[in-house]
C-alpha cells in the first residue's frame, strides 16, 4: 500500500512555508518509523522530519531548496503490511 508523507506542522510564528534543506533518505531506501527522512528549515530552526511508516521510500515529491506549506505531500512510502 502506498502512503503519502505530508510536511508536519513545524512552523513557529507566522505560518510561513517550510524550506527543504536536504533529503537524508534516498528513493528505494528501506525506512523505519522514526527514521529521519529529510532536514527542513523553519523560521526558528533547522530540524529533522521523521518517517511515520515502515516501508520503502518510493518518491521524493518536493526537491531540496523548495519551500512548501504545512500539509503538502512531500514523499510517498510503499508500506509493508
Amino acid at each position, binding site marked *: 500500500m502506498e502512503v503519502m508523507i505530508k510536511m*508536519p*506542522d513545524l512552523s513557529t510564528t507566522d505560518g510561513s512555508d517550510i524550506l527543504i534543506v536536504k533529503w537524508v533518505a534516498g528513493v528505494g531506501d528501506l525506512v523505519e518509523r522514526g527514521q529521519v527522512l529529510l532536514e527542513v528549515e523553519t523560521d526558528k530552526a533547522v530540524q*529533522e522530519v521523521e518517517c511515520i511508516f515502515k516501508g520503502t521510500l518510493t518518491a521524493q515529491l518536493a526537491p531540496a531548496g523548495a519551500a512548501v506549506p504545512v500539509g503538502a505531500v512531500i514523499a510517498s512510502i510503499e508500506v509493508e503490511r
Partner: protein
Amino acid sequence: MSKDNNPEFLLNLLERMIEIREFEEGVRFLFLEGAMPGTIHQCQGQEATAVGVCSALGKEDYITSTFRGHGHALAKGLSMQEMLDELFGATTGCCKGKGGSMHIGNIDKGMVPGVAIVGGGIPLAAGMALSLKLNKNPGVIACFFGDGAVAEGAFHEAVNMASLWNLPVIFVCENNLYGASTRIDLVMKNTTISERAASYGFGGETVDGNNVLAVHEATKQALTRCRSGQGPYLLELLTYRRVGHSRRDPGHYQPKSERQDWFSRDPINYFASRLIADGLIDAQGVKELKDTVIARFEAAVKQAKRAPMPTLADLETDVFAAKEPA
C-alpha cells in the same frame, strides 16, 4: 512481604512507565501525521518521576501539573482513552475537549487540570493544601513543576507560605536541566534546587529521578512528614527529557554526549533490567508488556478519532460555577 517488594507492585510500576512512554511516542506520530491539532509537550525520559511519586500517593491525595502533564495524568490513573479524546478535542475527553494537551486533568481522579503557565501551579497547590488543612482532610498535594519554574516569584511566595503555615504539600521539582532551551546553569548559580527549601525553613532533598523506586521511597517519606503536620517538603528529581521542549523544538541545544549519557540511564531500561535480574520478568515479558500497551493505545486512538466533537451549544457550558456549590 512489604508492598515495595511485592512483584505485582513492581511490575505495575514498569507497566505504568511503559504506558507513558508508548502513549507519548504514539502521540508524537499522530502529531507528525497531522492527525493531532496544536502542539504538545512530551515527557519521554521522565517516566520515573511521575510514576514514582504517584504510586506513593493515596486516593485522598491530589497532584497539580504543568504543560508537560501526560505522564503525571497516566500515573495518577487517568485512562489513555479520556486523554486521547481530550487531545483530539472531543466532548468525551477528561475536560470535555476544552482543555487539550496542556490542561489534562480529572479532579475525580485527584488531578487538577494542568496549569500551563510556568510556576502557576505552585501557589495553587499551596492554596489547595491550606484548604485541606482547614477542613482537617488527611490529603496531601504533590505539586509538579520544572527547574525553570524555580526562577518564578510565584515559587518563592508559595513555598514560603506553605512552610510558614505547615501546609501538606510535596513540591516536586522535575529538574531536567533545561527550562525550554536554556540550560539550568545559565539562570542559577546554585543549581542544587533542593537547597532552596532550607532558606524557607523546611526540608528538601535531591533524588535520582530516573530511579522509580528511589522516587517512590522519597515520596513516601515526604508524605509521612506532610500527613503528620510537619509542613511541606521539596523533592528535586534529577531527570532528562529525551525530546524537545515542544513538538516544534528539535532540541539541538542538548549536547550529544550529554544525551547519550542520560539515555544510558533511561528509567525504563534501568528498572526493566533490575526486574529481569531479580527474575520477576524476562526480556520477552517486557516486550509483551510493551506490545499490550501499544495495542491498547491503538484501540484508544481508533475510538478517539470517532469521538463526538463539541458544538456551538457547548461553548457556554462549564464556564461559570453553579450558584450553590454541590
